């Protein structure tokens, strides 16, 4: 039975989240099937990337501030957190998190009389998202901390001369300047976090009912056809599109952060390579 390409898209377009045809194609693979299924897997890469970055942004700000604190009781834990997540491979972090989450009692735990179900934490959508969130928060915190340290002294003195102190100085001067200075590096972090989402189904977290990400399906096709020259370039193509979209979006934010500056001293976003964390 051969399907037209449009029928394939209808059958497999949302396969990665369990909608549509249940059985994956097993023989006579067409280019259309590969494009559709791998594209369907991108839903997961976008899901992990967007949620981890959004939540991670807030934690990163908190950690960056904690790292800047004078009180060692606040500063030390933040430094350790960043060290542990930046100093070890994300791959190992995924494994470790999975093994730790599996050890939670299967039936759930009772805390203060409330029954908590724990089975869902070992699923990729929750467990892997948690790891990615903690991981990106550590990397971003380091970026924001560096930016916080490089705020020009004159800016802070000017703020004080205007009578801004404490919280007001922070929210009106330090925080916006920190974001502006750190934004180009943070853009790179966002791109590479999206790239890191491809590790999810290759380490620790199993894919249930063959619901996986783009690389999971590309690997499926490469295993079945023994031909890596079609599926992997397809994932590569999707990721180039995703990278362009991320660069565009973060570029808009960067423009907004730099809007008050003369055009020659605005900070530009430059792509800098960073591999697997």
């Amino acid at each position, binding site marked *: 039975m051969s399907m037209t390409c449009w029928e394939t898209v209808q059958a497999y377009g949302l396969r990665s989240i369990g909608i549509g045809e249940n059985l994956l194609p097993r023989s006579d693979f067409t280019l259309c099937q590969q494009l559709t299924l791998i594209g369907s897997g991108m839903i997961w890469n976008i899901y992990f990337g967007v949620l981890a970055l959004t939540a991670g942004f807030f934690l990163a700000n908190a950690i960056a501030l904690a790292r800047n604190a004078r009180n060692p009781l606040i500063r030390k834990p933040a430094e350790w957190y960043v*060290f542990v997540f930046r100093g070890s*491979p994300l791959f190992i972090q995924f494994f470790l998190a999975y093994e730790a989450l599996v050890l939670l009692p299967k039936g759930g735990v009772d805390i203060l009389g409330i029954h908590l179900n724990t089975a869902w934490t070992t699923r990729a959508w929750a467990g892997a998202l948690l790891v990615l969130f903690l991981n990106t928060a550590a990397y971003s915190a380091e970026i924001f901390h560096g930016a916080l340290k490089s705020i020009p002294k004159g800016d802070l003195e000017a703020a004080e001369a205007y009578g801004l102190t404490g919280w007001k100085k922070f929210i009106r001067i330090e925080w916006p300047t920190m974001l502006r200075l750190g934004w180009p590096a943070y853009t790179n972090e966002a791109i590479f976090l999206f790239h890191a989402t491809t590790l999810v189904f290759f380490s620790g977290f199993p894919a249930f009912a063959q619901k996986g990400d783009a690389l999971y399906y590309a690997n499926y096709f490469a295993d079945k056809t023994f031909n890596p020259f079609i599926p992997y370039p397809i994932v590569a193509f999707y990721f180039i599109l995703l990278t362009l979209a991320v660069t565009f979006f973060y570029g808009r934010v960067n423009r907004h952060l730099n809007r008050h500056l003369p055009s020659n001293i605005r900070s530009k976003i430059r792509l800098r390579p960073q591999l697997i964390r």
Partner: protein
Amino acid sequence: MFEACADPKAIEGMTWTACYLTSAKHIDFYWSFLTVLLLLLITAPAALGMGFLGATAARSHIPPVSWIGKVYIWMVRGVPDIIFFLFFVIALDQAIEYSKSLMVCPSHEWPWQGLEFRVCPEAKVPLAKSAPFWHQAYGFFLAVVTFAIVFGAFVANVIFGAMNAVPRAQLETAEAYGMSRRQVFRRILIPQMWVYALPGLGNLWMILIKATPLLFLLGVKDIVYYARELGGSKTQAYEYPHGDWRLYYFLGLMVFYLVFTRISEIGISKLTRRLSHGQATAGGEAVRRAAA
């Protein structure tokens, strides 16, 4: 290993632990750490060489050569590197077996027939009857080449940037002294570019360390493989039965990596200080002031 370990079921406590940690499989596990170090030891210079070639090619005045260099540098941007890892390992294997088949096979069929890659048995690398060691060694070799290609592109990017960062005046002065293009490259550009390349290279070294668990994905029996094997729960059928200890084994790996990256960090900062000596940069100025 020890006399007392002859009957593991009869012993307990510290002796059990000592025997357990020195079992044959654990010794293999400890050796696999050397596999990781060996990979780093081979890959780092290989990637440096590839990167150097790539950057030099990208700077070339002959357009096709410079395009090749630039495409190589841009290749790994925008695409997750793990895709390259998975791709190159199969692609290289098939390229090697296909070229071998052209030489040793009686008939030269197109190897991608239907859903398989088929070459005659004599063209298999390694041959099906080879010892398991050669299969492991070949897998490791493919992994090393893949690492060198992918990391070489990243190194090329760093070195290309560093070469452009060497002040123009330095090169022009050398030209004014009558040095040829080759001499300027060797005597002025190369010695000066390292200090600009070092922060990027140091960063890449850390990333390379953290990329070594990928060996597991490439099918090499590395530390991740053994941690999963040894940690998995063992029934009474095994010599040393225990529950699911994978968490502890992975904690061990985590500590190994943390220590390794921390030591590297300290080493890199020392190297930076040494290379800054006598350089016309802020770092070099700091070294001069400290000495005075």
